[in-house]
């Protein structure tokens, strides 16, 4: 079978976790370690948004599919102070509050590490029974009977458990999974359970919103930025299969792909290739969110007297299947790669990721309707001095177009507007890396509004201190031209030969009897 694989469905979810900003975001935990009395720590609480404000935040409404990215073109910047009437129910997935997210952490915990206070647990369970998680999964919370705040305090104080707060009160704790092994410490277990839980949530919404049976899924690729394992195999994995188990994907196995922010693009190329090769019929690519990055730019946000906008744990799931003749196709034969020898200048980088793959199939920059590089929400990055990351990428692509003679210098701004978009994704590392656009791209490609898009993932490998290199990978997605009919051709001589051989075999069998 030589058909391209397709984007069959997407799921995007957010968990609004204001207390985790204070207690799990590394900007805050490091500050507490260094200067517990700092002005920043004294002021940060007054900059935390309410759940309602986070739900009604326009970039969050776009993330879950209730509004289109184009809305940001019409909105006056900044966006955080604009009133908007949103919903926690999204077309691509929901936004959930922190208490339900803690319940989900316990549902995802199979080693009895998560403890929740009894009354809190009962209230959360009642909410979760009515949610997508359902009664059976929510019944996991029954195990909290008898757990008091005193029990939790003791776990935190005596056994190095990680505290879970809700509205400023201690409501839970995550125990360490080993007394000595730092890879199984309460801190690491919390981060890993957060990644697993947000991945599970996105998978469940993707299945529900696209009417996909869990049993249909054969393989899962996780591409988050965490590592799970113990002291003898620190990054052994496997988030993918762990999430698949909780999501009820009984016929699936899976594996983890890592590559910092570029990992989702790598994972989608892998999934598309596995499906096209016929190895699996349906593969989910998923990535859960990162609690360490909560409030990452908080110091600048507080200094500029704006709310802490990095208060959401994001997740996504993308289903890639065999060609259905309708869904957009993934051109896994048109892939841009930043190789070891590519070089590090922006010109080299974008040549390898954008123009080289296009030129390989005779296309120019203008033949791609939309580019989806890093789609970080600039409401978050601009006040922090990191600028508008998406716009910077578009300007560099356009500049390369000018250099290549494909674009006139005076058309750079028009190119950026026509072929780009404003970013809306939370700064959760791998989450903004092109993939938040897949849901809208799928819709617009299927509606014939656009014909071709390019996803560009970039990863900061140097953060791992094993190489100074960074990484990048890109690929095209196009509207589906329909399944090519396979023309059966028959050769009369071959057929005669087959029949003759069969008759000969039959005759020999009769004679031998």
């Amino acid at each position: 079978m030589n058909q391209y694989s397709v984007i069959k469905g997407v799921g995007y979810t957010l968990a609004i976790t204001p207390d985790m900003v204070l207690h799990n975001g590394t900007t805050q935990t490091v500050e507490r370690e260094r200067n517990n009395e700092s002005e920043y720590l004294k002021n940060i609480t007054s900059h935390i948004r309410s759940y309602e404000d986070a739900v009604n935040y326009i970039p969050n409404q776009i993330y879950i599919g209730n509004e289109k990215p184009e809305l940001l073109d019409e909105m006056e910047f900044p966006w955080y102070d604009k009133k908007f009437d949103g919903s926690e129910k999204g077309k691509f997935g929901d936004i959930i509050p922190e208490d339900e997210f803690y319940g989900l952490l316990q549902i995802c915990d199979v080693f009895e590490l998560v403890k929740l206070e009894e009354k809190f647990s009962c209230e959360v369970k009642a909410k979760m029974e009515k949610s997508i998680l359902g009664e059976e999964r929510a019944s996991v919370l029954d195990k909290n009977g008898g757990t008091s705040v005193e029990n939790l305090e003791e776990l935190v104080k005596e056994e190095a458990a990680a505290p879970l707060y809700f509205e400023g009160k201690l409501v839970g704790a995550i125990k360490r999974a080993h007394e000595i092994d730092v890879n199984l410490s309460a801190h690491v277990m919390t981060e890993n359970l957060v990644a697993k839980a947000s991945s599970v949530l996105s998978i469940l919404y993707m299945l529900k919103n696209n009417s996909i049976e869990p049993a249909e899924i054969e393989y899962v690729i996780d591409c988050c930025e965490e590592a799970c394992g113990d002291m003898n195999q620190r990054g052994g994995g496997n988030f993918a299969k762990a999430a698949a188990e909780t999501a009820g994907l009984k016929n699936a196995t899976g594996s983890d792909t890592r590559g910092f922010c570029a990992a989702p693009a790598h994972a989608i190329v892998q999934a598309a290739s596995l499906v096209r090769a016929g190895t699996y019929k349906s593969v989910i690519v998923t990535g859960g969110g990162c609690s360490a990055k909560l409030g990452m730019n908080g110091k600048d946000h507080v200094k500029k007297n704006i709310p802490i906008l990095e208060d959401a744990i994001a997740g996504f799931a993308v289903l890639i299947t065999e060609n259905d003749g309708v869904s957009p196709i993934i051109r896994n034969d048109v892939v841009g790669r930043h190789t070891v020898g590519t070089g590090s200048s922006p010109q080299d980088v974008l040549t390898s990721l954008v123009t080289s793959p296009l030129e390989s199939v005779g296309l120019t920059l203008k033949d791609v309707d939309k580019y989806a590089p890093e789609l970080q929400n600039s409401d978050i990055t601009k006040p922090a001095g990191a600028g508008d990351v998406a716009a910077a990428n578009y300007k560099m692509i356009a500049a390369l177009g000018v250099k290549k003679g494909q674009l006139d210098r005076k058309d750079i701004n028009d190119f950026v507007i026509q072929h780009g978009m404003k970013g809306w994704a939370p700064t959760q590392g791998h989450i903004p890396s092109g993939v938040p656009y897949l849901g809208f791209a799928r819709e617009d490609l299927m509606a014939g509004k656009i014909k071709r898009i390019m996803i560009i993932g970039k990863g900061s490998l140097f953060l791992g201190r094993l190489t100074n290199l960074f990484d990048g990978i890109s690929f095209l997605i196009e509207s589906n031209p329909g399944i090519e009919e396979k023309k059966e051709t028959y050769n009369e001589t071959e057929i005669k030969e087959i029949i003759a051989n069969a008759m000969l075999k039959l005759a020999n069998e009769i004679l031998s009897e």
Partner: protein
Amino acid sequence: MALLDGKKAIIIGDRDGIPGIAIEECARSAGAEVVFSSTECFV
């Protein structure tokens, strides 16, 4: 005489802008002595 002759350079590059390695090349070719160079990810 090159533009940065006799100067020492501390370089902080940006993953989504100009990486440290690329600035390093430019600074060296302009005569600077690179005493520190790093690329950072600001997102």
